């Protein structure tokens, strides 16, 4: 008995950091190694000259150099500030639109399917109009980021509230929840998992829109990740181009991972999706 308890405790102290981390890391590491190997093989095959398709080592060297300097961090700073402002505004707009659609039957009929339509519309299609409206400016980028992300956030909230179990709603009403208290104490908490899924998807759209925006809307003397792609292509600097792409990919994955961790925590606490498939 004591031996079993000791093992369980040892496991608890040991597993989350050591073995569990390794269990998650080795498949990623393996996938990365395979991808790099394939890339190296293609580079060696002479499929394209190496000033067009550099090998992983050249890109890695470029990335390491720039991570040591200040310009890349400056670009990341600008891009992340835009992402933060755009995403915050998207949350605000998406949440308000979502709540309005839920509350009003007329509004739902009027814009319900439009929201889904906007979601499927490629954000890059908005840029010509955005540039006409706002010229090559921060506002043009912000405009398209919000149009890209807000529909997903609104849709997440709407589906979360629509899927609220009628039984829970009845229980809430019997407990005396109505009006604002019904929303704050029951409807919004119940809709939280779907809302978080909407935020996660909204982030993906915001990030895509932002990169498209930074490629098209190049503002002088303001380095940003998308702008960096633009200039790398202009100067046919393939290692720099691919290194920047990697930075964009990694940032997107990190933020997505943060959302996934929060969403999974919420689901687990409610006893949802706890079983491994």
């Amino acid at each position, binding site marked *: 008995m004591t031996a079993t308890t000791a093992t369980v405790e040892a496991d608890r102290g040991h597993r989350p950091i050591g073995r569990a981390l390794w269990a998650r890391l080795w498949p990623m590491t393996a996938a990365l190694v395979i991808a790099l190997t394939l890339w190296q093989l293609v580079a060696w095959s002479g499929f394209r000259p190496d000033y067009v398709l550099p090998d992983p080592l050249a890109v890695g060297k470029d990335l390491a150099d720039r991570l040591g300097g200040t310009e890349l961090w400056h670009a990341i700073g600008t891009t992340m500030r835009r992402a933060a402002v755009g995403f915050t505004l998207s949350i605000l707009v998406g949440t308000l639109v979502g709540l309005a659609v839920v509350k009003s039957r007329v509004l739902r009929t009027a814009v319900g399917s439009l929201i889904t339509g906007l979601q499927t519309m490629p954000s890059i299609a908005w840029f010509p109009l955005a540039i006409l409206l706002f010229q090559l400016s921060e506002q043009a980028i912000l405009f398209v980021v919000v149009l890209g992300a807000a529909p997903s956030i609104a849709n997440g909230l709407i589906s979360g509230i629509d899927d609220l179990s009628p*039984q*829970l709603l*009845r*229980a*809430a*009403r*019997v*407990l*005396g*929840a109505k009006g604002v*208290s019904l929303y704050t*104490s*029951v409807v919004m*908490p*119940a809709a*939280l998992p779907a809302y978080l899924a909407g935020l996660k998807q909204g982030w993906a759209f915001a990030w895509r829109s932002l990169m498209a925006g930074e490629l098209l809307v190049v503002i002088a003397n303001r380095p940003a990740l998308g702008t960096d792609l633009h200039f790398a292509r202009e100067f046919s600097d393939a290692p720099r181009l691919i290194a920047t792409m990697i930075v964009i990919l990694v940032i997107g994955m990190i933020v997505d991972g943060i959302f996934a961790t929060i969403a999974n925590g*919420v689901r687990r*606490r*409610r*006893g*949802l999706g*706890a079983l491994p498939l």
Partner: protein
Amino acid sequence: MTTLTAARTAIRVRGLIKSFGHGRGHTVALGGLDLDVAEGQFLCLLGRSGCGKSTLLNVLAQLDEPTAGSVDLGGRKVAMMFQDATLFPWLTAGGNIALALRLAGVPRSQRSARVAELLELAHLGGLQQKRPHELSGGMRQRVALVRALAQDASVLLMDEPFGALDAMTRDVLHDELERIWRERRLTVVFVTHNVREAVRLGDRVLLMAPSPGRVDAELDVDVPRPRRIDSPEVGERARRLTDQLQAQGSMT
């Protein structure tokens, strides 16, 4: 009848009609129902599915509007329990009860003491921090009962609350419910399709019949408490009610 005139009436229903839908597709769930429930009485509504038991409960809980007729609760507060515990999955057991207290207007400073006290009442002391999905069906229903009591209502409506539980858990919860009903002098309206359960718990059992929903027969359960669900007295009355239920079936 004598008990009715002696005690005050907690629930008075007159000519209650409830229909759903319009035109040809419409159904009459309750067709002109009269009902008096004395204060402190444990009333069981018994009947097969579709006889309007749950509809009546929903109207009493003001979850549904009556189509016609009147319902008078004399301003009494109503709490309700369902077959499904309907605990809020994002809150702990204690959190569910605290929310009920908050919605009932209990000030924040008193809530945690009241939560502990209420959990103790149903012998749930150690489960305050548990989430609903970590509890067994019986435990969930206990928490739901405590959450209903937290509203400090004098009328407790129960819609087949133990229908999904195993027999042993149900027996224990019958005892608990009976004890709490006595201690708190509650008026209980308890819907069930289990004949023995109705006789085990009720002071009075109303047998309901479908299309349209109405009261078909009535039984004052003159078996002294504490009762056992497997006692011959309960069994004998249950048999009489079952016979009546079956007679209903042969008519339709």
